[in-house]
């Protein structure tokens, strides 16, 4: 899909520029004339939404950095000053903190979209891996950003997460000391987190560039997972998907604004409005909601190193997913059994997220005591997390490798156009199908 260019410079200046820096051509080929499968549904709008999220975070972040002071004695009060005294500081900071949550909502939907429609399969493996590099960078950025207000959750969250590296044998302690720049999370830690929190979003932007590049080589996957066969299967990106993405972005911003203006602290934790105190840990320490599934996996394992390894393994397994799924059929639409396992997987992720926010020894069904299995009552969140963790890994390591070889997929359409054109009376289908008649 790449390679040919339909850009024709119209003015003398454009011609002059095109032979020197063909940047208008690049933009034209990537967002105007880029041939896009004509059957993309709304799950495909999250790429555009994520780009908007990144821009919002960088713009608001740069403003916040103008007023924030990265020092243990001033960090908390400088954030409060932003909230109370800086003109519109409350707005910019709430945009930034809620924006992070919105960013993760969108990225999770984007990831599950890719999982369901097999967007990680050949020839899109590199695209998928770049996506997960972005996700890792996002997690690092979000974690360090959460430390900056230097509240109780900030501080003790930083202690717990940096101590994860201490679980590594031999080098663990040296690594945590190196990360802290001292013998505990302290001013040196806060300072470097601020520096890196400022840097990483620009690295994300760079990898996003690669991600889009890797997307534009094979072109978009689509809901039926069948390759684009002819020009009849595509429409130009503009205006068809600029408008569709634009509409989805508006809906998404409405959701964003709902949080921002009506309940800006709904996704935060009240303990972070208490200044950091290294001598007292909050009774119930939890990470931000978007890390809860991984936190549940960490706590599911009674062994420190084992828990840490399993938690990182939960992300590592996604990097090799393109080689674990043996099915030749991309879209779960044509994999009735696979679809079922996928739905349970999505459920397991939500269950893990829920468990991550609960106390491990609390009961799932109140008032019911079953029996102690190994170290905890079976009716406890720790056991529920263990079951969900087991399924999480089994889905990637057992279900997808084996199911691809054993299941019988249902018939896939010949091409993207076939199901659309086979509905002669379908008015909406005809409307969508109109542009390809030109070609």
């Amino acid at each position, binding site marked *: 899909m790449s390679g040919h260019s339909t850009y024709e410079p119209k003015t003398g200046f454009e011609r002059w520029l095109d032979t020197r820096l063909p940047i208008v051509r690049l933009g034209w080929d990537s967002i105007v004339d880029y041939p896009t499968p004509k059957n993309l549904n709304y799950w495909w709008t999250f790429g555009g939404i994520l780009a908007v999220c990144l821009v919002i975070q960088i713009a608001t972040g740069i403003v916040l950095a103008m007023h924030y002071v990265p020092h243990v004695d001033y960090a908390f009060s400088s954030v409060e000053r932003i909230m109370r005294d800086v003109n519109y500081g409350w707005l910019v900071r709430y945009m930034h903190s809620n924006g992070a949550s919105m960013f993760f909502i969108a990225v999770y939907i984007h990831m599950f979209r890719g999982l369901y429609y097999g967007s990680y399969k050949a020839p899109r493996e590199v695209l998928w891996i770049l996506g997960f590099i972005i996700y890792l960078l996002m997690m690092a950025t979000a974690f360090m950003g959460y430390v900056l207000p230097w509240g109780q959750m900030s501080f003790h969250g930083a202690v717990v997460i940096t101590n994860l590296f*201490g679980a590594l044998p031999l080098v663990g302690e040296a690594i945590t000391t190196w990360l802290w720049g001292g013998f505990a999370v302290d001013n040196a830690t806060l300072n470097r987190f601020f520096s890196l929190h400022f840097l990483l979003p620009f690295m994300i932007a760079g990898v996003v560039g690669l991600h889009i590049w890797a997307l534009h080589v094979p072109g978009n996957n689509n809901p039926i997972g069948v390759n684009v066969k002819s020009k009849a299967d595509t429409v130009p990106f503009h205006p068809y998907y600029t408008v569709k993405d634009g509409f989805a972005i508006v809906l998404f911003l409405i959701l964003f604004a709902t949080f921002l203006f009506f309940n800006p602290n709904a996704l935060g934790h009240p303990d972070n409005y208490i200044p950091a105190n290294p001598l007292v840990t909050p009774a119930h320490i939890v990470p931000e909601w978007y890390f809860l599934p991984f936190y549940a996996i960490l706590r599911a394992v009674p*062994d420190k190193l084992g828990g840490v390894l399993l938690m990182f393994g939960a992300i590592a397994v996604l990097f090799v997913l393109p080689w674990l799924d043996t099915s030749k059929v991309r879209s779960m639409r044509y994999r009735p059994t696979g679809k079922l396992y996928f739905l349970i997987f999505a459920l397991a992720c939500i269950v893990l997220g829920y468990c991550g926010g609960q106390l491990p*020894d609390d009961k799932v069904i109140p008032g019911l005591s079953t029996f102690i299995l190994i170290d905890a009552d079976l009716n406890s969140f720790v056991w529920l997390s263990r079951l969900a963790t087991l399924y999480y890994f089994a889905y990637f390591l057992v279900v997808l490798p084996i199911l691809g070889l054993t299941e019988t997929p249902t018939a896939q359409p010949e091409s993207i156009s076939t199901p659309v054109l086979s509905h002669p009376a379908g008015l909406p289908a005809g409307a969508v199908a109109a542009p390809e008649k030109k070609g």
Partner: protein
Amino acid sequence: MADTVVGENPDPHAAGEDPNRRDFIHIAAGAAAVGAVGVMAWPFIDQMNPSADTLALASVEFDLSKVALGQQVTIKWRGKPLFIRKRTDKEIAAAVADDTASMPDPQADEARHKPGKAEWMILIGACTHLGCVPTFAGGDYGGWFCPCHGSHYDTSGRIRRGPAPTNLPVPDYEFLSDTKVKVG
């Protein structure tokens, strides 16, 4: 190659002189560049390690008369909480009685306090799991309880149950007098 006339071929990679000399220069130059980058990387890595002023953090002296029997005072030392607990006879007895019990990181109570000062338990108050601060007198063993992931420590600061792998560490300290202790 050996009989190629010097200067006959303008392509430098197929030049007439002994090709091994050129290869050697390529490899040597490449290795020097890699080595130089490697050497310059170290200062950028090491700058994140504790700085001289952090390393020079003074030791603390503490007046023990501030701690009542059966109570604990938490002070900050090297950025971490330090527990100074004056144990009751009952708590000492419980710890000694458990010396033989099975635990993840077995250690006798005697080895965790200064000789003849069994009432003074001085520990670094960072859970050995992931560093939260355990709460005083909580948990099933009456020592400390870490709320983060449920580690139970006994009155000697030994891990008894939960994900923490080792006992609460005992820092270096000495008694300057009966009521004064110097940590670090």
